[in-house]
Structures are given as structure tokens and as C-alpha cells.
């Protein structure tokens, strides 16, 4: 039996605020199978980014367990192999051109060769930037930068892709293109996708939709009326 790409059980997280603690996440249970996608919506400050950082292993939960592909190892070395991330602000390295930015994921994983260079080039072609590989981030539009970030996230063939408001800084046209690209590539490569978004239309494009409210995830079924987030 295949383990889910991501499984979280009873994940809790609180932050100190003065002399008390604010409980942001109150027992999150989530499982995402390979090749499937889920979206998480919620109001601002509901804890979406906190949850995503916990799922990425960048922060430790107060309680609960997190497994990637059935393993509790979520350290930096495994992160480079298993996980890809896309952020609202792209986070491209300004000193590197688009091709080098995509390759950076593989460099951190442990060195590059001709095959990695070819894959980076191929990924850039698949996100429609085959002619922009030698352009610096400042020479690219917002939508193009996010597509470079998507290519970088997929560079190491991750089994899990976490996207944190990837369309937050894009216009509608570019946002649509990036979401379609993410979903298409994940379907094609069998990568599990967790998409955090405010946009209900984008959320509906994923296989399962969740709403984060009062520290807990509530699944939104298609028969339910649209939820505003």
C-alpha cells in the first residue's frame, strides 16, 4: 500500500501573546495522496501560512505528527529531495538568471551535471520561458518570475509541492496561467499539491478543498454553496 505523500495528524501550534498563548492550529488532520491536489482557504490571519510552514518542516508543531511519504524525516536534506515550494513573492535570487535560479534547487540538493542543466532548460520550456533562460529576475514580468519559481520547485522532481498564495502578486491572466501550469505539471508528474489561496475559483480547480477556520480544517464538498474566504 502506497503511503500518502503528506499526512498530518493532530497538528497543533500556538504563539505567545503577552502573558497568554494564542492557539493558531487546533488539531489539523490532512492526508494528500500522490498526484492529487488540495486547496486551503481561510481568512487573513487564520493560520494558512503557519500551517504551510509546518507542513514544509520549516517549523515544529507543539503537538501532532507529520509524515512525508510515510517518513517522519522532514529535515533540510530530505526537504531538498521531497519537497518543492512556491511563494507569493517568488523569491528568485536576483544575482542569478532564470536558468540558474531553476538549477539552484538541484545545486542545494547536491551538485549539478549536464542532465540537470538539460532538465532546467526543459522545465523553463514547459513553463513557456525557453527564450528567457538568461534573463535576470528584474528583466522578467511578475507572471514570468512566478513561472520560473514553479520550474524551480519542480526541478528536483518533488513528491510534494506546497504553494503559498502563488497568484497573490499577479494579475488575473497571469494568475490563471500559473494555477493551470501548477495543476497540469503536478498531474503530469504525479506530484501531490497543497495550494493555499484566497481565490475560490482557483480552489475549485483542485481535487479537494479545505477551509481553515478557528484553527481547524473543514473540507468543502462540491455540493456545498461557495464559501467565501
Amino acid at each position, binding site marked *: 500500500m502506497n503511503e500518502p505523500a503528506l499526512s498530518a495528524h493532530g497538528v497543533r501550534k500556538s504563539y505567545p501573546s503577552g502573558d497568554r498563548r494564542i492557539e493558531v492550529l487546533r488539531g489539523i488532520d490532512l492526508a494528500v495522496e500522490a498526484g492529487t491536489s488540495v486547496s486551503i482557504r481561510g481568512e487573513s490571519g487564520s493560520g494558512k501560512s503557519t500551517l504551510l510552514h509546518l507542513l514544509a518542516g520549516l517549523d515544529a508543531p507543539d503537538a501532532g505528527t507529520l509524515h512525508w511519504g510515510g517518513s517522519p524525516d522532514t529535515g533540510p536534506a530530505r526537504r531538498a529531495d521531497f519537497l518543492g515550494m512556491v511563494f507569493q513573492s517568488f523569491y528568485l*535570487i536576483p*544575482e542569478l538568471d532564470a536558468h540558474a535560479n531553476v538549477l539552484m534547487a538541484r545545486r542545494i540538493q547536491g551538485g549539478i551535471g549536464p542532465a540537470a542543466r538539460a532538465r532546467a532548460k526543459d522545465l523553463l520550456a514547459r513553463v513557456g520561458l525557453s527564450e528567457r533562460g538568461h534573463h*535576470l529576475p528584474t528583466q522578467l514580468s511578475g507572471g514570468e518570475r512566478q513561472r520560473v519559481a514553479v520550474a524551480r520547485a519542480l526541478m528536483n522532481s518533488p513528491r510534494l509541492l506546497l504553494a503559498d498564495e502563488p497568484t497573490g502578486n499577479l494579475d488575473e491572466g497571469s494568475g490563471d496561467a500559473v494555477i493551470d501550469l501548477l495543476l497540469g505539471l503536478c498531474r503530469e508528474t504525479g506530484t501531490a499539491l497543497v495550494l493555499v489561496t484566497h481565490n475560490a475559483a482557483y480552489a475549485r480547480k483542485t481535487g479537494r478543498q479545505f477551509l481553515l477556520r478557528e484553527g481547524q480544517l473543514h473540507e468543502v464538498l462540491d455540493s456545498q454553496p461557495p464559501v467565501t474566504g
Partner: protein
Amino acid sequence: MPWFIYLALKQLFPSGKRFPFFTVISVFGVALGVMVLIVTTSVMGGFHYGIEQMIVNSQGQVQVKSATQIVDYPAVVRQVEKVPGVVAASPYAYSSVMVQYQGRPVYPFLTGIDPGSIEKVANLRKYMVIGSIDDLDDDSVIVGSALAESLGVTVGDTIEIYSPLIIQKLEHDELFLPRSVHVVGIIEFGHQQLDTSNVYCTLRLAQDLYGLQSNVHGLYVRLQDGLNEDEGAKRINAVLPENIRAYSWEDSWSDFLWVLGLEKSMIFFMLFIIVIVAAFSVTSSLLISVIRKTREIGLLGALGASPRQVAACFCIQGLFIGVLGTAVGLGLGFGALAIRNDVVMGIARATERAEVLQRFYQFSQLPAHTSESDVVLTIVLTIVVSTLAGLLPAWRAARLKPVEALRNE
């Protein structure tokens, strides 16, 4: 190439048309310090080397001395010359005298040398400015240039030498007349102390004046090239009796050399402050870079970089700046040394003081002698300090938690 080295290089030298101001300014600061250090230590080394050559050429590399006198010196010379590594030994007698010319007295040291063997151990001929050492006999002397100038004597003049024995003789109601000798040469070492206080005569004349009979005060010794002076002195001491000891020229001039060394060390460390200031500027620039790149550091963590690798990325930038600054500084330093004489003479000519400069320093050219140890010390210290300059920013970068850095959005 590990990613942190690659990224460090890319951050120092970004792709495209962006001019790396931070890198150029940081490298130039370090290079300036290295250049000043190389020029200063080389010029100081040049003076030091000139003095070493002057001492060795006038007194040999090792001196054999006795607390009183060396009796039967030919036997001691034979004994010393048998020591492995010794080329030759030559006897000398040495004491202070009173010299008078036209009623003006001065009190130099009179050194009696053996004209037959002195050239095997010393190269006095090199420093003769008027006359020849071949003209030296038992009725003549060679006078230091500054002393000759202060007395107003030149070759052919007659001066009177009053021996210290005059006082001893007077105690026994005996009369010991001063010795009249001709000046047959003027010698100039280019060292104030030697040129103002040295007179050379034959060993026989000095033995007469000091009442030594056939004894001498010591031997000058020349060693084979490449043999360390201290080692040579040690070997000679092994065959000499306890009351006769060998001293390397560095031992004999230890106080003077200590002062020279102290002067050089003090100047080195004071000028090294330039490198330290440049290193502070590197620290400051890298710290700003860490703050500016907080989100990128968070991203690197999200991509799987460890805190240690992130720290290495910034530390290596300090190292690269140090290596590059040192290389550029060495180039500038040796370039400046190559044109030093043109610069100095240009300044001297512009201020119409060219002759004063030559007379004061006794050098027609500014000396420079770059020692390997000075260059190695400069390189190592500069690179270490520059690398240390990257430690604080590196530590700060490593402490940034990816989740907090990303939240900086």
C-alpha cells in the same frame, strides 16, 4: 562546486550589467592595506638588508672575541679555519683613540686589520670612496667619510693618533708620544655610526698603539654561503676554549637589530590597522547584505540548505574579498616598489632637495628588500582577518530561521 561557494561568487560578481560596487570597494580597501604593508616592510627591509650587508662586509659574519686578548692568534685562526663551514678568519685589534688634526680632537675607534687576510673575510674595498686599501701600511690609516669631513682631512693629510697607553705610561712617568700617520683612503659604509667613528690601520700599528705585542682582540670570520651565522658561531665555540667565544653578527649587533625589528613590527601592526578597518567595512557590508537578503536566506532554507551552509556562503564572501584584495594589493605594492625611486627622486627634485636626500640617507636609491616571511605574514593575516570579518554576518545568517525569514514578507 558546492552551492554556497557558487552563490557567494555570484553575490560578489552578479551576472549581467550590474557593477559590483560592494565587492570593488571592499576589495580595494583590503588591497590598499596590503599595498601599504608590502611597500613599507620592503623599504624597511631594504634598510635592514643594507645594514646587514654593511656589517657582514666590514666584520665578517662571525666575530671571535676574548674578554682580554687572544694570545697566539695564528693558532686560533688555524683552529677556527678547520671548523666545517668556515671559509677564513682574520685577526683584528680594536679600541678607542684620540685623533687630532690641526688642533681639533675627535675620539673614534681605531681598528687594526691584517691586510694580508682581511679580504678573505670582509669586503672593505667595496666601500672605499677615495684611495685604496692596497696603500695601507704601518704609517697610514683609512678614515670614515663623515669623520674625515668633520676633521677636514683628505687623502695625503697627516693626523696624530693618541693611544690610551699614554695615560698608563704617564702613571709610570714615561712619555708615550702620539703617532703621526698619513691618510691613504676614505671609506664610507653609508651608516652614520660607522662613518663617524671608524679609522682603519694595519694590525701591527694597532698592536703598537695598544701595547698588545703579538696579541689581538679578536678574529673576523667568513662562513660558507648558506650557513646560518648562529650555527657557524655554535660550531666555532665547540672547538674554542672557554675564555674565547664566537658571536654571530646578529649577536654582536643585537641591541641595534632589536630596535630595528621593534620599529618594523610597530610600523607593521600600525599599518595593519588599515586592513582591520577594511575588514570592518566588509563586516558592515555583509551584515547589510544579510538583512537585505533575509527572505532569500529563508528561501535557501526552504530549498533544503542547512544553517551551516548558509553561514559558509557569507563567510566565504569575506574569504574571497580577502584573497582578491591581497592579490590586488600585492600587485599594487610591487608595482609601487618598482617605481619607488622615480617617485622619491621626483619629490626631491620638485622640492630641490635631491642632494640633501642623498647626503642624509647615504643612498642614491631608496632601498627595498622584500622578505618572504613578511609577504607570507601579510597574506596570511589579511586573509584570516577578512575571513573573520565574514563570521559575524555568517553567524547572523545561520541564526535566521527560514520560517521567520519567509514571514518577513
